[in-house]
């Protein structure tokens, strides 16, 4: 931790693997459904991530050409927003709050515990592919922290013990 800002992932785009036929069909379905919206790119990226769990780098060219944008614009947007990811996550997304209200109730210790327990750092996926651990800056549950969100389900007053119960038999 000392001497520099906590390591932020550079998130280089993995080499773009061409989309499989099924993936391509899903991406196209999302684009066709949402392209008419003004400012369609964010809704489209949300749609793709909802459908596939991430925005495959192989989809960038397709999205760009269909929305009449440059690849750089699409890439720029994907990498600007913390929520969009370019690689396949684990089966469940575990978002741990790092913000002040949770800090005041010991979230830093919970964060250390979570990383140890799951054997991953932030943005990492457990060896068994079950969980991807993400930091989040406020879940709006600030009176009942520390908080985490597991696949869209919010949990308050989390401690090491209840964390272990939640993640069950994870490695």
């Amino acid at each position: 931790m000392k001497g520099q800002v906590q390591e932020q992932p550079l998130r280089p785009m993995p080499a773009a693997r061409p989309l499989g036929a099924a993936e391509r069909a899903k991406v196209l379905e999302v684009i066709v459904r949402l392209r008419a919206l003004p400012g369609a790119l964010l809704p489209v990226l949300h749609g793709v991530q909802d459908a596939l769990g991430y925005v495959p780098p192989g989809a960038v060219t397709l999205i760009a050409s269909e929305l009449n944008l440059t690849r750089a614009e699409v890439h720029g947007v994907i990498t600007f927003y913390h929520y969009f990811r370019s690689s396949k996550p684990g089966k469940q997304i575990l978002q741990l709050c790092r913000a002040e209200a949770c800090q005041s109730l010991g979230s830093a210790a919970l964060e250390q515990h979570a990383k140890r327990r799951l054997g991953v750092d932030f943005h990492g996926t457990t060896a068994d592919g079950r969980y991807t651990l993400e930091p989040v800056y406020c879940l709006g549950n600030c009176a009942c922290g520390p908080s985490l969100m597991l696949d869209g389900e919010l949990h308050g007053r989390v401690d090491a013990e209840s964390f272990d119960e939640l993640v069950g038999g994870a490695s």
Partner: protein
Amino acid sequence: MSVRIYVPQDATALSLGAGAVAKAIAAEAERRGVEIELVRNGSRGVFSLEPLVEVETAGGRIAYGPVKARDVPGLFDAGFLDGGKHALGHGLTAEIPYLKQQERLTFARVGITDPVSLDDYLAHEGYRGLKNALALSGAEIVQAVTDSGLRGRGGAAFPAGIKWKTVHATESAQKYIVCNADEGDSGTFSDRMIMEGDPFVLIEGMTIAGMAVGATQGYIYLRCEYPHAHRTLNAAIAAAYERKHLGTDVLGSGRRFDLEVRLGAGAYICGEETSLLESLEGKRGQIRPKPPLPAIKGLFGQPTVINNVITFASVPIVMDRGAAFYKNYGTGRSRGTLPFQLTGNIKYGGLVEKAFGVTLRELLYDYGGGSYSGRPIRAVQVGGPLGPYIPASQFDAPMDYEEFAKVGGMVGHGGIVVFDDTVDMAAQARYAMEFCAIESCGKCTPCRIGSTRGVEVIDRLVAGEQPVKQEAVLRDLCETMIHGSLCALGGLTPGPVLSALNHFPEDFKKPRVVAAA
């Protein structure tokens, strides 16, 4: 006759087990052959009692909480369906002191109604503001909002009426109403509670804004960390369309207003209004230099009213009861009420809506009951991650935009994060810089580079490497960020840093043990 039981669907209540409680009540009622009607309401905002179960009786709603699923059979045994006595009972909900002493205007219905029932909203004085507004000209609506003294509740506190007036006066074929629901500040959840607990009041407020300035399209830019609010908003918007409270012919007026929810993607900076507009346009959320103001050139280059959730949600009561009624609350230039959020290390956390002028001490001790840990409160952060830390010596300051600024504070969005005496203020200062580095949009140098250098300087200062020199560098750096940044992120990050340094210098000089394992 079936008994009506309320179990909140609010995200905080759910995070404490309200979902399991609702299921247990339904199952137990079925097992006993009792007919009940289960309503999933918003939260009353007394989180120490959540999950708070309420039973409707002839004498009023009776509260039980905090209820766990395993308490449910016992509640049935105690006759809670008739308001029977139980260890978890609190009598009439409306008489709970935490609630009774509040001044709930914006939050009048939250926790009381079924959030997605338009009929329930109408039965509780809903849409009366819009009906009044439809009888007025746009200029008259703008005047009423101006007269109410309502200021932007997102944090900047800019008078809403003036913003609306500019949009009203700017000619354009297309204007927009945008709601900033990117409530990213730690220690805040009032927007979320409105959207989950009374979404129609936001929809009504935005519709009134549309009628006032002549805008036909509204967007709610919602942070993606709020999936519960997303579902509730979409359900309420669908219901409003169904019953012609939105669409081509709002309430038979022949006037159009469309509304859509758009999701953010985890960027704190998109709570800044120009970044938000960029994001809505499908771009990176980088801030735009002002001028031009969004009121003149906003979304897609068109005149745009952009306000926070609570600002819009406060408009219906202004239009219903009149500007004078609303203005009658508050002090000085801070008129009306603010929903304060008591969070962090606090015993009775929750939502306290009070007129401006209430002191921090009243909120922290009379409502909050002191710290959750039972230790002394050492510092509070008011106004989000960019708000300065306030030491105990200043707890008597009134919560009023101008008065609170005099003691170096920022009322902001009304979020109050409490820390007990175990807090390391140097670590909090470092975090403020770290957060800025993570969330900077990168547009301007003081914020983008300054925040990273700030972390490094604080680390050296705390390590005792030439501390006098480091402190001077840190103060100089903060000065540069304050004056050189394009927006509030870089410009206000020095607030928490310098307040920690000024009020708690001892934390920066502690002999440190190297990273205790």
